[in-house]
């Protein structure tokens, strides 16, 4: 069986793209990808299949044909993937599986989301349409409940949670495609408006439009496109719900533990081998918990992990050098693809001001909420130089 390799990536600047149509987003990321391929690409001849990640919040039609129309790549299998906030990373995973199986030689993975076309935004739609039998649970509430419990059980402090946002906003000022480019302090985070106690506005990622694309191919074709392909070493996907009565799920995300275990096992790597990670930080608390779920530190020690500066850009294990969702933004379908693109750049030494020195193994991680907000999905991919 062949390995799968990432051989190109393209992205548009994330932000408020009201003046861009949905097709403009897809076209922008796609053109950037086409232009980025080191040895060039003849897209209509070279690309065999397309995986397209979007929740289609902008209601632009749910089918792979959206990509065909935006790019001109007709007469090819094009599949839309929907998997909550892990949509983009699962689109990537599906393409990787098809390439590894030998059924597809060259796959385009593209993710896009227009989050700002709806007046209510996601928080509103979550509360109104996914009311859990009258007991409204919003996204910030969902993650905030873990924060409350984590603080109670492990003496994690409000300041430690805020530090995640401080770190990611600092990184975001150095990352060219980030939506929100400003620095903030722990006090700024604590003084920003309360969204859902204990989380404040600066603990939450912004509402952002964006698109990103990567090119995946097999052993045989990889060198045709670049001298520096990045190998996909492993992946995992799992689901869980904290209503199943598992107490660990009150403070953590068991699905992330399962998905990362699968990816570690497939790749032969462990948590200590990861040089750089792009993880899901839709809220500050999500990243703090994720340090534990991915095995970067022990259960309950996420607060100390950030306090000690380990996930900082100049720390021992840099997490979210791109500024993460907190700074870069979270256009759902594009999010996971953009994380893959960042790890691709990191492993090739092309990450500019946020480059982690000598990164050889990188991890990408998403967690998503679904099923009346009671379930969770997690997707993890490991890449290596």
């Amino acid at each position, binding site marked *: 069986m062949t390995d799968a390799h990432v051989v190109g990536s393209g992205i548009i600047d994330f932000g408020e793209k009201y003046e861009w149509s949905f097709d403009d987003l897809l076209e922008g990321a796609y053109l950037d990808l086409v232009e980025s391929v080191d040895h060039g690409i003849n897209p209509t001849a070279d690309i065999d299949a397309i995986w397209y990640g979007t929740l289609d919040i902008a209601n632009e039609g749910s089918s792979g044909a959206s990509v065909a129309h935006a790019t001109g790549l007709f007469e090819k299998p094009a599949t839309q993937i929907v998997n909550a906030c892990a949509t983009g990373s699962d689109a990537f995973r599906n393409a990787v599986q098809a390439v590894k199986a030998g059924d597809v030689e060259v796959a385009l993975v593209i993710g896009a989301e227009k989050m700002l076309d709806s007046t209510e935004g996601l928080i509103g739609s979550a509360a109104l349409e996914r009311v859990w039998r009258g*007991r409204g649970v919003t996204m910030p509430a969902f993650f*905030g409940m873990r924060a409350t419990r984590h603080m109670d059980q492990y003496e994690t402090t409000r300041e430690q949670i805020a530090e995640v946002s401080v770190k990611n906003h600092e990184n975001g000022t150095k990352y060219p495609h980030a939506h929100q480019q400003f620095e903030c302090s722990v006090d700024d985070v604590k003084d920003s408006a*309360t969204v*859902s106690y204990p989380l404040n506005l600066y603990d939450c990622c912004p509402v952002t439009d964006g698109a990103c694309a990567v090119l995946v191919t097999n052993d045989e074709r990889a060198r045709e496109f670049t001298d520096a392909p990045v190998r996909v070493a492993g992946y995992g996907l799992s689901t869980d719900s*904290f*209503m199943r009565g598992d107490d660990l799920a*009150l403070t953590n995300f068991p699905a992330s533990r399962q998905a990362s275990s699968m990816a570690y096992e497939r790749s032969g790597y462990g948590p200590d081998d990861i040089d750089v990670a792009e993880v899901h930080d839709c809220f500050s608390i999500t990243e703090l918990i994720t340090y534990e779920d991915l095995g970067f530190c022990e259960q309950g020690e996420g607060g100390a992990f950030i306090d000690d500066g380990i996930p900082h850009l100049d720390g021992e294990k840099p997490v979210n050098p791109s500024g993460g969702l907190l700074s870069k933004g979270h256009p759902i379908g594009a999010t996971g693809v953009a994380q893959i693109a960042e790890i691709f750049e990191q492993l090739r030494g092309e990450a500019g001001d946020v480059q982690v020195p000598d990164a050889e193994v990188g991890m990408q991680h998403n967690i998503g909420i679904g099923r009346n907000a009671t379930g969770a999905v997690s997707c993890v991919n490991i890449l290596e130089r």
Partner: protein
Amino acid sequence: MSGPRYHRTREQDQRLLAFECQSCGYVSFPDEKRTCKRCGDAPATFEEVQLAERGEIKTFVVQEYLPDDIEVPQPLAIVDLPQEDGSGESARVYGLLTETDLDELSVGTEVVARFRELFDDGERPINSFKFSVPREVKR
């Protein structure tokens, strides 16, 4: 917003009727389904169990930012409600709280279910429970 789903589980919501998996002991509320959400038993055998009205907050938040037509602050908790006869496991439920004072709320606080009109779905009032801190427990 789909109206019927609030009415589908009216009996469970108003009587705190739950369903215990006979294979792993998981207590499902308010759903009564034919598969177990914990052990995956399929088909599963569920027996009706009565939940107590008093339970314990496992974690909570106080929502401040919600669409205009939802009242804020709106506290929301995950509460474990034990079985009335003291046997078996608790059911883990979402519940709105009546209390908004952070000093009165913490992980481990005892709360009691109070049945009331939660909101109006346009045609009919939706009756279910909210959790309150019992008077004798209040600080």
